[in-house]
C-alpha cells in the first residue's frame, strides 16, 4: 500500500502529468494513421525515452500504447479504416454510424468505452496480476489451436448474409497467411522464386488494402465524400452525456466486453485484433436486436473499443509477472524493462514495487486523459473530415495509406501487395465477399497452423497423434466451445430452412 502511495506521489508531479499527456497525444496521432500500429508507435518513440529516468520512460511508453490503441478508432469510424488492427471490429458499426451522420456519437462512444476499458485493465493488473498470470501458461500449442478455431467461428457472424461467402472469405484469408516462410519448419511457400515474398503478407498491409482501397474506389465511383452527405444531420445534438447515459445505463455489454478483453489479453499470441473481434461477436450474439449490428449500433463500437483498451494493461499481466508478452507491442516494453535492468517476475512487484506500481498507475492516468484529449481530437478530426470535399479527401487518404504501408517495413513490395489486395477486395465486395472474414482468416490461419503443427510434432510417439489436441482439460473445454459456437451459428439457419416449409406455407396462405 505504501508503495502504491509512493508511486502515486511520483506520478502526480508536473513532469509526470506532462509526460503522460504528451505520450497519449503522440500515441493517438500515430495510432490514427493507417499502417502505423501501436508496436510501431512504441518503437519510433522508444529512443526519446533513453534520456529519461526508468519510471518516466515507462510512463511515456505506457501512455503512447494507450493512446495509439484508442487512436485506431478515429479512422475506423470516419473513413472505415482501422488505424491499428485492434480497431477492425470498430469499423463494423462505427462507419455505418458515421454515414448516418452519427460520427460524433460513435466517436464519443468509442472514447468512453476506451477510458473505461483502460481503467478496468489497470485495475485487473494492479489487483490480480499474480493469480491471473498462472492462466497465461495454461495455453500451450493445442489450446492455441482451439483458440484460433474458436475465432474462426466468428466468420459466421461476420459474413452478413451468406455463410458460404463468409467461409470463402475466411479461406482466402487463411490461404494468404501461408505465403512466406512457414511458422513451423521454415520452408518458404508460395514465393514463386521471388525472394522478397519470403516476408509473407503482413496483416496491416492486407488490412489497409482490403478496407481502405475499396472504400476509396467506391467514393470515387459514386462521386461522394464518405460522410458529408449527412453533415447536416450531424448537427442534431447527441451530446456526450446522452452517449454516456446510454452506455452506462446498460452496463452488461460493457462488463462482458471488458471481461472478454481481459481473458484474451492474457493468452500469449492473441492481441487486440482478436479481443475486439470476439467482444463484438459476443455483443451481437447476446443482443436483443442482433440484426441492427453492422448497420450502426453503438453497442458494437463500445464492445470493440472497450475490450481492446482493456488489453493494453491486461496483456502486461503475463509480461510483468512471467516475462511473456501478451500482445505484440509488449515485446518492446519487455526490451525496455531489460534495458533498465528490470527482470520480469514477482520481484518486480516487491523490490522495485514503486517503479512497477508507478508504471501501472500511469497507464490508468493515460486512460483518464483519453477523455479530454480524445474528445477534443475527435471534434477536430470530425470537422476536418466533414468539411473537406471528397476530391481532396480521396487522394489525401490514398497518399496517407501508401506512406503508412511503406513505413511499416520500408518495403515498396508491400505497397504493391496493398494495391493488389485493394483492387481484388473491391471486386470481391461487389460479389458479396467482405473484408472482415478475409482478415480474420489471415490473423488466425497462422496461429491455428502453428498450434496444430507443434501439437502434432510433440505427439510423434503417440499411437493416435490427433488425440493430443484434446488431451488437456482446457483444450477439451475450448474444443467444446468451438462446437457450440459452430452450432449456434449454423442451427438457426438450418432450423429456418427445415422449418420454413410449414412457416412458408402458412404465410403464403395468409398472403393469398
Amino acid at each position, binding site marked *: 500500500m505504501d508503495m502504491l502511495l509512493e508511486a502515486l506521489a511520483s506520478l502526480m508531479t508536473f513532469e509526470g502529468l506532462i509526460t503522460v499527456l504528451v505520450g497519449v497525444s503522440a500515441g493517438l496521432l500515430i495510432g490514427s494513421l493507417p499502417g502505423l500500429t501501436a508496436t510501431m508507435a512504441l518503437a519510433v518513440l522508444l529512443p526519446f525515452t533513453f534520456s529519461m529516468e526508468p519510471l518516466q520512460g515507462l510512463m511515456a511508453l505506457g501512455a503512447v500504447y494507450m493512446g495509439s490503441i484508442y487512436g485506431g478508432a478515429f479512422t475506423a469510424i470516419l473513413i472505415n479504416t482501422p488505424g491499428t488492427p485492434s480497431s477492425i471490429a470498430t469499423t463494423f458499426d462505427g462507419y455505418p454510424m458515421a454515414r448516418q451522420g452519427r460520427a460524433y456519437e460513435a466517436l464519443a462512444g468509442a472514447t468512453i468505452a476506451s477510458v473505461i476499458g483502460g481503467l478496468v485493465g489497470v485495475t485487473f493488473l494492479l489487483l490480480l496480476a499474480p493469480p491471473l498470470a498462472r492462466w497465461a501458461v495454461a495455453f500451450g500449442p493445442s489450446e492455441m489451436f482451439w483458440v484460433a478455431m474458436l475465432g474462426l467461428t466468428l466468420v459466421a457472424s461476420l459474413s452478413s448474409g451468406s455463410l458460404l461467402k463468409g467461409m470463402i472469405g475466411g479461406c482466402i484469408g487463411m490461404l494468404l497467411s501461408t505465403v512466406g516462410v512457414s511458422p513451423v519448419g521454415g520452408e518458404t511457400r508460395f514465393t514463386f522464386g521471388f525472394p522478397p515474398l*519470403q516476408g509473407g503478407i503482413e496483416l496491416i498491409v492486407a488490412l489497409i488494402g482490403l478496407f481502405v482501397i475499396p472504400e476509396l474506389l467506391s467514393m470515387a465511383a459514386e462521386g461522394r465524400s464518405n460522410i458529408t452527405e449527412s453533415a447536416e444531420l450531424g448537427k442534431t445534438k447527441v451530446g456526450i452525456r446522452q452517449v454516456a447515459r446510454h452506455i452506462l445505463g446498460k452496463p452488461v455489454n460493457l462488463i462482458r466486453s471488458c471481461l472478454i478483453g481481459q481473458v484474451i489479453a492474457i493468452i500469449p499470441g492473441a492481441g487486440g485484433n482478436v479481443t475486439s473481434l470476439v467482444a463484438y461477436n459476443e455483443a451481437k450474439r447476446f443482443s436483443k436486436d442482433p440484426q441492427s449490428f453492422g448497420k450502426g449500433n453503438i453497442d458494437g463500437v463500445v464492445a470493440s473499443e472497450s475490450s481492446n483498451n482493456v488489453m493494453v494493461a491486461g496483456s502486461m499481466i503475463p509480461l510483468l509477472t512471467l*516475462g511473456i508478452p501478451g500482445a505484440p507491442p509488449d515485446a518492446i516494453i519487455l526490451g525496455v524493462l531489460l534495458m533498465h535492468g528490470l527482470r520480469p*517476475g514477482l520481484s518486480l512487484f516487491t523490490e522495485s514495487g514503486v517503479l512497477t506500481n508507478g508504471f501501472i498507475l500511469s497507464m490508468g492516468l493515460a486512460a483518464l486523459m483519453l477523455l479530454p484529449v480524445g474528445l477534443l481530437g475527435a471534434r477536430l478530426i470530425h470537422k476536418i473530415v466533414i468539411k473537406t470535399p471528397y476530391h481532396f479527401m480521396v487522394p489525401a487518404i490514398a497518399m496517407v495509406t501508401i506512406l503508412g504501408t511503406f513505413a511499416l517495413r520500408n518495403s515498396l513490395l508491400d505497397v504493391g501487395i496493398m494495391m493488389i489486395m485493394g483492387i481484388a477486395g473491391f471486386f470481391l465486395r461487389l460479389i458479396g465477399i467482405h473484408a472482415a472474414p478475409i482478415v480474420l482468416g489471415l490473423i488466425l490461419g497462422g496461429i491455428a497452423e502453428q498450434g496444430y503443427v507443434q501439437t502434432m510434432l510433440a505427439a510423434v510417439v503417440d499411437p493416435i497423434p490427433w488425440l493430443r489436441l484434446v488431451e488437456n482439460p482446457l483444450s477439451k473445454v475450448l474444443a467444446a466451445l468451438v462446437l457450440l459456437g459452430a452450432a449456434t451459428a449454423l442451427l438457426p439457419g438450418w432450423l429456418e430452412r427445415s422449418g420454413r416449409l410449414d412457416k412458408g406455407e402458412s404465410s403464403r396462405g395468409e398472403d393469398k
Partner: protein
Amino acid sequence: MKFSKSILVSAVSAIALAGIAGQVQADYPEEPISYVIPFNPGGESDITARFQEPVLEEILGVSVNVSHRPGGGGAVAWSEFQSNAEPDGYELIGVNIPHIIAQPILRSDAGYETDNWEIITFFHSTPNALIVPANSPFDTLEDLVDYARENPQVVTLGGSGTYSANHLDMLRLEREADIDLTYIPFSGTGPLPAALEGNHVAGVFNYTMLGVQMEDRVKVLAVASEERVPALPDAPTFKEQGYDIVGGAYRGVAAPAGTPDEIITVLEDAFAEANRRIAEKQEPLGFVMEYITGDQVDEVISQLKDAYAPILESAE
C-alpha cells in the same frame, strides 16, 4: 594525428581509385549512416542497436539511423541489401550467424549469399543453453540424455525457429550423445518462457539470456560456450560434461561488398569502442561480448559452416 591519417587516406584513395567509381571520402563519415536491423523491434538485435546508436553517433560525429526491415527470418532485408546497397560506408546492416549460413543452404530462393558482403565485426555472441523447468525430473544433462536414450523421441525440446542456432545445436547434441529428441520450433524467443512455465515442452534449447531472465524458475543444464558464462556461474558447459558443443548466435554488422578498407577500419574501431562502453549493461543479461574482425570473421564463419553444413545438407 587525425590530420596525417586523413591525408594518408586521401592519398591512398587517390592513387588506388584514381577517379574510378566509388569516391572515397577522405574524411568519412560526413553524412548520416543508415543501420538496418532485419528483424522486428524488441528482439536482441534491436536492443543491441539501440544501445550502440548513441555511442556510435558520439564516436563518428554523424547521426546513425536504426531502421527495421523484418521478414523471412532476415532474408528479405539481406537479399535487398546485397543487391541494392551502395558500398560507400553509409549503408550498414545487422548480420546474424547461423542465419546467414543456414538460409542460403536450405532455401533455393533466399536471395543472398553468405559471403557477398564485408562483415565489419561480430560484436557479441549468445551461447546456446539447455534449460528445463524448475520442477523438471531432470537435474543434470546426464539425466536427460539417459532418459532420452531409453525413450527415443519422447523428450520434447522447444527453441526459436527451424534450423536456427537453437535447432542446430540440439541436432548436434543428438549426434554427440546418440539420442533421438523431438524439436518443437516456436516463433522467436518470446513464447518460450510460457512453454517452460506451462510445461508444454520438457525443456528448451535457447540462449543464455533466457536462463538469466528466468533464473529462479528454471534449471540450466548446460551452456554451449568454451567457458562458463559470467552471468550464469553455476551452469556447467557442454564441454565440461563431455560433449563438444560450442555454438550459439553471433551478431554483427556488415557493409556492402567493395566498401573501401579505410572505411571498414573506421567502422571496426567505432563498433569496438561502442562494445566496450555498453558491455557493463549487456553482460549481466547473458550476452558474451566479442571483438571478431578481419580474418577472424572468416574463421568463425568457416568453422561454424563445417559444424552445421553436414546437418543442414542432410536436412535439405
